[in-house]
């Protein structure tokens, strides 16, 4: 498969936006995500020090380049040749990262609500959330915040009408068909279902995050004791 259907838009004086597939579509696809991950690698190699930053997201890739190191026409031509080059796309590429979750109606107050809305038991919600292998589609919003998709339709839930002033670090949450682990304590409007003891962002450690865009994540249910033993902390909400 090639990524010939991708098209290049100007984003700014030193960046191009590459849209994969129909830019106006809201469809999320693992195949598109795999194509973006493969393109990232090729762009890094081809651009070398001409590349300033890359922002991969669901169906797009922002390529920021150094105009003192290359002409904008060179950058566009290089991108076009990379997108036209055949790629071996493997949806199972990227590492599989297993992350423990202490699912808890006490520390994840929307867990019971999601169960109620779906006509399921809390145990069933946990089983469904932890049975899915998620893909890291994007990283952003805050340092270490990874958007994982897609959540089983039955668990999809809109953001809270009033966001919480404080969501604790490690909170596992759902918004629409996305799920995430809050990397740090911050305001947030996602539905909380549990706590994960694995830090999503560690400034002092390389790599700073346990996952990258294109990796896969699966959650393993743990109990409160295991959560505490793994270094997890409990805060009243």
């Amino acid at each position: 498969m090639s990524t010939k259907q991708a098209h290049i838009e100007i984003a700014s004086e030193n960046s191009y936006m590459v849209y994969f597939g129909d830019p106006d579509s809201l469809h999320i696809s693992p195949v598109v995500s795999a194509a973006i991950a493969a393109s990232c690698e090729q762009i890094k190699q081809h651009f070398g020090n001409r590349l300033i930053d890359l922002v991969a997201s669901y169906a797009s890739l922002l390529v920021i380049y150094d105009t003192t190191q290359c002409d904008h026409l060179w950058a566009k031509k290089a991108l076009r040749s990379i997108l036209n080059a055949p790629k071996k796309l493997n949806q199972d590429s990227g590492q599989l990262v297993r992350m423990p979750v202490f699912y808890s109606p006490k520390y994840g107050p929307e867990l019971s609500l999601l169960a109620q809305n779906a006509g399921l038991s809390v145990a069933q919600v946990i089983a469904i959330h932890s049975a899915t292998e998620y893909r890291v589609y994007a990283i952003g919003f805050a340092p270490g915040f990874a958007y994982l998709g897609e959540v089983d339709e039955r668990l999809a839930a809109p953001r809270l009408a009033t966001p919480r002033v404080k969501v604790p670090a490690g909170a596992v949450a759902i918004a629409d068909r996305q799920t995430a682990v809050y990397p740090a304590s911050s305001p947030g409007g996602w539905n909380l279902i549990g706590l994960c003891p694995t830090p999503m962002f560690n400034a002092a450690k390389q790599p700073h995050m346990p996952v990258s865009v294109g990796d896969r994540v699966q959650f393993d249910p743990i109990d409160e004791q295991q959560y505490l033993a793994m270094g997890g902390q409990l805060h009243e909400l």
Partner: protein
Amino acid sequence: MSFKVLQPGLLSLIQDLGRFGQHDIGLTTGGPLDSEAFLWANRLLHNTPNACAIEVSFGGLQLLAQTDSYFCVTGAHLNLTINGVNKALWSSHKVVNGDEIKLGYSSHGCRSYVGVAGGFNISPSFGSSATVMREKVGGLNGAKLATNDSLPCTEITTLLRQALPEAHWPLYGQEGTDKNGADTVLRLLPGYQHHQFDPVTKARFFHGQYAVTDRSDRMGMRLEGPAVSCPSQQMLSEGICLGAVQVPADGQPIVLLNDRQTIGGYPKIGAVMARDTARLAQLRPGDTLRFEAVDLHQAHTINTLAQLKFDATALLQLKD
């Protein structure tokens, strides 16, 4: 060897040119809102362009020199004194151990840059010392300067003092209005979802006049003016670059600046040139602006000429 903060003012931040290559873990760039005034500060002190300086928003910073050094203040217009004696902006000055530097409040322009010879020695995090408060990264523990903070630097006892001739000082919205009555014109590259905006909306955007509002910060400048309607508010989140003009449901544009989030899901009509986001960051609430479309070739010509002008501008050599 250091400067001590006596009064931090409203918002004083350690900045270098910014944090690059870290968007993949969600870190934004930070860096000086007015990169031009920042670069002048370092050039006046014979520093490398990326040397650490202080970005002071709206003035009010007071420092105590605890070493012999040279410093300068560029950017917003304000009253500068050393031990109560008035000193020129856009000029390097000698200070000795015990001198007190005082910045008044800015009368026009908003952002000032306090550079020191050799730059402040602040250890970088993620490759940069730029402070981004939202991320708690850079500067001193990711925070704004506070009273009694110590800013390390190198002792320098002799340096050729330089000044930027006043005829080259930027005017920050006091240039006089353009033919349509706006204080400032921002050059913008149409891009991103530009194709989704209908021709009438685009015409309104490029002909309309927008005012800077007080709901603006280092993440973005919120503007008020003719509403720009976008046919679709439903889109997948995507990467956001410096200067991107985001249009939320109320149609009032937001120009995204240095501390923007790296991804977001609002439609964008294009991006303001970095050179012009620098000028925008000096405007005050109520100042007016309009947008002018440029293409990539024009943008690169504008940048090349501006760089040549910066390099070619002769500085005044001052005696001690």
